[in-house]
């Protein structure tokens, strides 16, 4: 039996990894909750955001933690435009079409990145990448602590938007009853695009938090996709607190599984959990029926 302190360290590490997972999942679940589509382009958008954060640092010298305030609005606009002018008009409300369109976008974005920047893996070197706090029994990496704090901040801001603003009210109305909302004069296409924008902004924030300690290549974002799907399914499709808690739980599970079983099984483990959840309790965990 390993010492309990090592386990505590593993849990703490898992929580910090889970925070970024949660942020990626937050965007996915938000889009699902309102548009009722699984955005297959989420991973590709994360890769694009990682490239954006990388070049913001490399060319403009913008620190990733400052770049957040530029990239989040930029990606919000990008997401808005994608839904408003590409996904919405192409899918015409048909669920199967939406699946194919987001898949097509994902393939397009990922390979456009590959075409433009090749498969090379790039990293940024910031001064604080390896800074850590000594807890006596383990070290906590500063960038990962920042991520954890930032994720809670983002979730809080999202909650504020949803709970207190008229826009948030409109989003919630569309999520609950699309036709009713439309009859009440809400511009559904606009709300859909806003939501897609918010989801994409989450991805941009996640990218800025990741880039100091992570790497970027055209498929870097895909590494998070199965995990994010699993979290969204676990936490309940469309549930923001579910994504937050689900993300942290998966982070801890992964850390402990890696600790006990070794790293190589981790990747298969996530998929197996995901398949199991889908097969055993699909509706129950999704919250609403398909």
């Amino acid at each position, binding site marked *: 039996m390993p010492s309990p302190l090592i386990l505590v360290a593993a849990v703490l590490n898992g929580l910090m990894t889970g925070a970024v997972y949660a942020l990626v999942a937050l965007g996915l679940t938000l889009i699902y909750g309102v548009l009722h*589509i*699984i955005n*297959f382009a989420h991973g590709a958008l994360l890769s694009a955001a990682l490239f954006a954060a990388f070049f913001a640092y490399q060319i403009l010298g913008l620190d990733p933690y400052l770049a957040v305030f530029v990239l989040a609005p930029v990606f919000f606009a990008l997401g808005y435009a994608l839904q408003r002018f*590409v996904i919405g*008009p*192409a*899918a*015409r409300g048909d*669920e*199967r*079409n939406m*699946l*194919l*369109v987001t*898949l*097509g*976008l*994902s*393939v*397009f*974005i*990922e*390979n*456009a*990145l*590959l*075409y433009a920047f*090749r*498969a090379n893996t790039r990293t940024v070197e910031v001064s604080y990448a390896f800074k850590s706090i000594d807890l006596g029994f383990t070290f906590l990496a500063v960038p990962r602590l920042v991520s954890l704090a930032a994720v809670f901040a983002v979730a809080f801001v999202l909650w504020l938007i949803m709970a207190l603003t008229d826009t948030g009210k409109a989003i919630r109305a569309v999520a609950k009853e699309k036709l009713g909302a439309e009859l009440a004069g809400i511009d559904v296409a606009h709300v859909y695009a806003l939501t897609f924008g918010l989801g994409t902004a989450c991805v941009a924030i996640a990218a800025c938090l990741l880039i100091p300690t992570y790497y970027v290549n*055209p498929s870097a974002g895909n590494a998070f996709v*199965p995990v994010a*799907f699993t979290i969204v399914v676990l936490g309940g499709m469309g549930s923001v607190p579910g994504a937050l808690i689900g993300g942290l739980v998966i982070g801890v599970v992964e850390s402990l599984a890696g600790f006990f079983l070794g790293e*190589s099984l981790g*990747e*298969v483990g996530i*998929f*197996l959990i*995901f*398949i199991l959840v*889908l*097969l*055993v309790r*699909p*509706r129950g965990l999704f919250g609403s029926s*398909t």
Partner: protein
Amino acid sequence: MKGFLLIAIVVAAFAAVPLVVHSNVTLNFLVVALLIALAGQGWNVLGGYGGQYSFGHAAFFGTGAYVTAVLQMRYGVNAWIGFAAGIAAGSAVGAIVGTLAFRAGLRSSYFALVTLAFAEVLRILASVAPITGAGVGMLIKLDLRAQSFQFQSRALFYLVILALVAVALVTAQMLERSRFGAWLIAVRENEDAAMALGVDAFSIKLGAMVLSAAITAAAGGFYAQYFLFVDAGIAYGTWISIEALLTPVIGGVGTVFGPLVGALAAKSLGEGAKLVTGDVPGLDLMIYGAMLVLVIRFVPHGIVGAFADVSDRIKRRVLAARAPAREAVHG
């Protein structure tokens, strides 16, 4: 009968190509296009006629490819028997995934997700398991004899894949005219209504999935014999899942010729772009992604569907023009 006649004419025309064309580059292009058309026809059976959109047909393609290769190289089994076993194994994977997914009642997005997840699990397992050659992949020994399913001339490979495509076309045509096909289409259009009318949706979907998996696994087995190499990224990679669904979507989902037309269109565009800019990684898939979005936006029924729409409109106009004339005779 009209449908079968059309298939016969098209296949005969394709079969005549090697008599005229001797360029290996062109034949290679056609072999790959037909290979993708075959994988796409598999997807079309389940996705086009059954409305179940799989994002993980690589699971079947890869199983067909690996079983064909592994049986030959590890167990010394004859290539043709290996190929048949590959098709059987692919169907078995289809049956397992289908049973699990349809039992759990997974539809649309969830079905797409779970098929994607199965393909990924198989890809990861194949990239670590020693029997598949793990990360290195597996080479099939060169043995250019017909009984080893290898041919000196590319034209023979071409005729074999053409024969497989012909079988798939006939299968799709028979499906369209069969009761099973009618039930499958009923499930696609409205599963609950079909069930209310007594259609056993679970068995119908499962049957379609097994047939679909078998066809796509055949494409995988042929791939292994043609390129004599498989690895996890090729066999179970997302590229084949995407091309398998792209071809029917471009050509026309739920049509007999959709996958063939779509494969020729997609491959022509992909290769055409390579000629213009050189072979840069990512270019062909980038074009496929854009095509997918554009086709759904502007040609929602695919190329074959668009032609059918146009001919319908012309027919209706001709009929409308005739109608007053007929009235005049009676009047």
